């Protein structure tokens, strides 16, 4: 009864896939949403202060000239919601390589970060071109991507103070 065997195999595979999916969602979720999204591992605060995360790009040029842009203005070819997940990865330092054979996930993370950082040279060219498009100038010296945190008073619903820089990464353009 090959038909019955195929159907049985399909059903077992289907149920197995659902279980695997559930296990991954429950025990092995990707780290970034869990870390950066308030509420993903607990409810976000609705009293006191709520901290809002944001990203901006600061370009520096000759004679101390500077340009501050929202990250979504600079990375206009990437959906802004994607940037909220990708820029933390970009700003992260490379995790140390794991020595254990079973640390598959650590190895993959390490390799992913090294692979991404191999694109720095290409990014410098991208940044120069993009700044030139935005300002008409091609003499920018460096570009810094900053992660900012800004507090909101959850009761009064207003910003409490200016955004503060939480971490940043600098790229030298010329």
């Amino acid at each position, binding site marked *: 009864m090959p038909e019955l065997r195929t159907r049985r195999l399909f059903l077992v595979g289907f149920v197995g896939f659902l279980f695997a999916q559930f296990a991954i969602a429950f025990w092995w979720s*990707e780290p970034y949403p869990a870390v950066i999204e308030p509420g*993903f591992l607990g409810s976000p605060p609705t009293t006191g202060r709520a901290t809002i995360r944001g990203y901006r790009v600061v370009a520096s040029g000759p004679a101390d000239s500077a340009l501050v842009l929202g990250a979504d203005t600079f990375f206009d070819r*990437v*959906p802004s*919601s994607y940037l*909220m997940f*990708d820029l933390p990865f970009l700003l992260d330092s490379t995790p140390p390589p794991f020595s254990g054979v079973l640390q598959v996930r650590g190895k993959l993370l390490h390799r992913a970060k090294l692979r991404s950082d191999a*694109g720095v040279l290409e*990014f410098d060219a*991208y940044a120069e071109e993009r700044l030139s498009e935005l300002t008409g100038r091609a003499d920018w010296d460096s570009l810094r991507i900053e992660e900012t945190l800004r507090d909101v008073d959850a009761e009064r619903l207003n910003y409490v103070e200016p955004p503060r820089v939480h971490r940043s990464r600098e790229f030298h353009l010329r």
Partner: protein
Amino acid sequence: MTAGLSTTGAAASPTAGTASAGGPLGRAQSWLDHEYFVSDEQLGFLRVLYCAFVLFVIGLPTFTWIAKTPQLLFDPPLLSPADLLSGWPSYGFLWTLSFALVVCFLLLLLGFFVPTVSVLTSVLLIVGSNLQFSFGKIDHHILLALGPLVMAGSGWGNRFTLARGRAAPNRSGVCLGLFAIVVGFAMFTAGFQKLVTGWLDPRTQASYGHLIQNFYGTSSGVLLAPFAMHVRSKFVWEGLDWATVGFELLFLAAVIRRTWFRAWIVLAVFFHTGTLLVLDIGFAVNFSAYLLFADWPVPRFRLSRRSAWLVAGCACVVALSFWWQTTAPNQQVQMGSSLAGYVVNRAVGPANVNGTTDEILPDILALLAVAGFLIRRSRNPGPGVMVSA
């Protein structure tokens, strides 16, 4: 298009009126057939509706924009084929992928090579989504990608087709039933994550917290968010937290009966529209999955073969034109473009707040469909009507 060029399926389920096959497998098949079986005509019409909705209302995803982004942003999911790549694929590859996808959907719409093209469509959507999600964020498009794959063996290419192929057996009960389980499971996992991470904790109101985060963070408070921010009642927000978790968890249980499942889909349409209006989180892509479970009135008119080809040609020209527009080199980020989005954008113009007004159209259509089914239900409370008992 001509309806009923070929037929094999009966109007009733294949296991109806017969003794159920032995064993758990046979009982499962009997249950799915009993609950989810639809006629060949209905099944063929579902395929046409599904393709038309994706092509002309929500718009097909395109992937060419990915090639214009810096390699530094390449962060594929760890357990995925994209993790084997060293960076973004070339523009040529992404163009071919996007073009193949629109061609597949058109073939599916017209009814050519339906089983094969259904599988290919899902594969292309999964590969493209994998690349799209290599910015680190994983969107909720999985139901769109899985729909054709699960329906491939259902026989949904038997009717409303321009092809003169051999008809396949009608396996709508099993295929629609499995897809219902997939939909229910997807919603269940969403609810389960909320359940175990404190959404039901009465000391905090998670929905309201997300509203604050979205209002000041990513969405800048569009649509109804400014009004929702003034609702400060803890009871209201806590009630929404509980309702959300309960609704998502019970979606899986609702699969047991088709009538329950349809009722849950009606709730889902309201739920998704609410999250779009208040939290600026659009789920219109899920409507493509939901529409497969409704009893649509199948058109009774017949087109001549010539007229059917003419209509098909027009559909191809419109779909390919919008696809071409999204892949133009000077385009900004375009994750999909559709006839409906174009019409709304032209009509609304600068009032398209934050680019979200056109996202409301699929929700409005879904609400109108729900209203239509409920009116039909109230006038004719017999079987075969949406949310009928």
